[in-house]
């Protein structure tokens, strides 16, 4: 178990350090998130659609697409100099490699969300008073499952010719349920409904996490073998 965690932490710390050094993916994802929010803000016809009606969907669309940019980079950096082979040569279980990649991706997507949420409040002038705790809970639960499945598909497509295109095409259908449930929860919270009313959506998100994190841990080793 100690070896498993050691390998996972080493991989996660390395990924975070590479991103800190290059800042390529994080800056791109945050810039993308800001642009999506700006475009939705100005493209909305105020006479037809209210901010409140559109806001939850915009928040989750922004987070989902920005997150996909980050997840794509997770294994793209292993393509350079065939670094992935170096990882696979090490006496570390494939599941530990997955966990390391997964933890780094979680940090990455949570960072995007931490930047996107204030921008969302700024552009859509929503009142988060009383809703922030619930939105954060929905975000955490949605991100746990989304990142697990995204990490698996990023690994699956890394050796393909059009990985950057293939990965979103494969992963987005799997993201429909958590995004839908997160939007439902956010809509109710922004409408001033009590936390108790979103319990069911949070439970669905937690169930999704359980299934897809477990499935990802089991699938990943098979994906890494040629």
């Amino acid at each position, binding site marked *: 178990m100690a070896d498993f965690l050691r390998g996972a932490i080493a991989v996660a710390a390395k990924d975070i350090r590479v991103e800190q050094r290059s800042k390529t993916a994080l800056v791109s994802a945050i810039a993308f998130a800001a642009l999506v929010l700006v475009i939705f803000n100005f493209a909305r016809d105020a006479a037809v659609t209210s901010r409140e009606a559109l806001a939850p969907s915009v928040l989750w669309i922004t987070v989902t697409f920005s997150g996909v940019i980050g997840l794509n980079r997770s294994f793209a950096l292993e393509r350079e100099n065939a670094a992935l082979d170096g990882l*696979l040569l090490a006496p570390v279980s494939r599941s530990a490699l997955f966990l390391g990649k997964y933890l780094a991706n979680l940090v990455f997507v949570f960072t995007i969300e931490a930047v996107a949420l204030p921008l969302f409040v700024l552009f859509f002038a929503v009142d988060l008073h009383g809703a922030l705790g619930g939105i954060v809970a929905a975000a955490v639960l949605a991100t746990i499952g989304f990142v697990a499945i995204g990490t698996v598909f990023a690994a699956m497509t890394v050796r393909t010719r059009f990985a950057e295109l293939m990965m979103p095409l494969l992963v987005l259908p799997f993201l429909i349920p958590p995004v839908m449930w997160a939007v439902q929860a956010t809509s109710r919270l922004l409408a001033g409904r009590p936390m108790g009313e979103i319990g069911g959506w949070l439970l669905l998100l937690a169930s999704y996490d359980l299934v897809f994190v477990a499935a990802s841990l089991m699938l990943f080793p098979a994906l890494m073998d040629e």
Partner: protein
Amino acid sequence: MSLDAHAGECHLIVGPNGAGKSTLLRLLAGLARPTAGVVMIEGVPLGSDPDIRRHIGLLSHQSHLYGDLTAVENLAFTARLYGLPDPDLLARAGLDSVGLAGRGDEPVRRLSRGMVQRAAVARALLHRPRLLLLDEPLTGLDLDAGDRIAAVLRRELRQGVTVLMASHDVQESWDLASHVHLLSRGAWASSGPRGDLNAFLTRYQEVVRG
């Protein structure tokens, strides 16, 4: 196909492009799965226990290094993956052993091709593997870089490491080899202790030309 290699021996695997040299090394490293048969290292089937990979070092066409990290950070990461003590100290010692002590804090992206190759050698040797797999380790290097890497390999051979080295350029690697194997279309065309270079080259040309 079978190959009997002992401690301190350097087996040079020669063959034209597409003969299967790189595939053979990837199979031996556990990076590719054989369609038939089993790869066994010291009697243990590869893939049955991740710990067996602790005894294998691989230097391929690619460096396996991250361009955005420094050479020290790259090697320290490798040390952590292998659970070695004092990763930073070990990384600096490894780079020192290949003559890169002064360049360890530079991002790998800024190093020359020869320096990257030397850092990759240090990475492959960091965990003191008993079996070292080298895929064209001297190709594309200038004389100085080639000599430095050859010196490191001689030192490892003296310390009892078994080396399997694939190359399509016989002459550059000939002096390092104790045994030479000629690979053609996935099978040995000849195999044995190193003999006369000219006789081997004649045989090699016969095989290449069919």
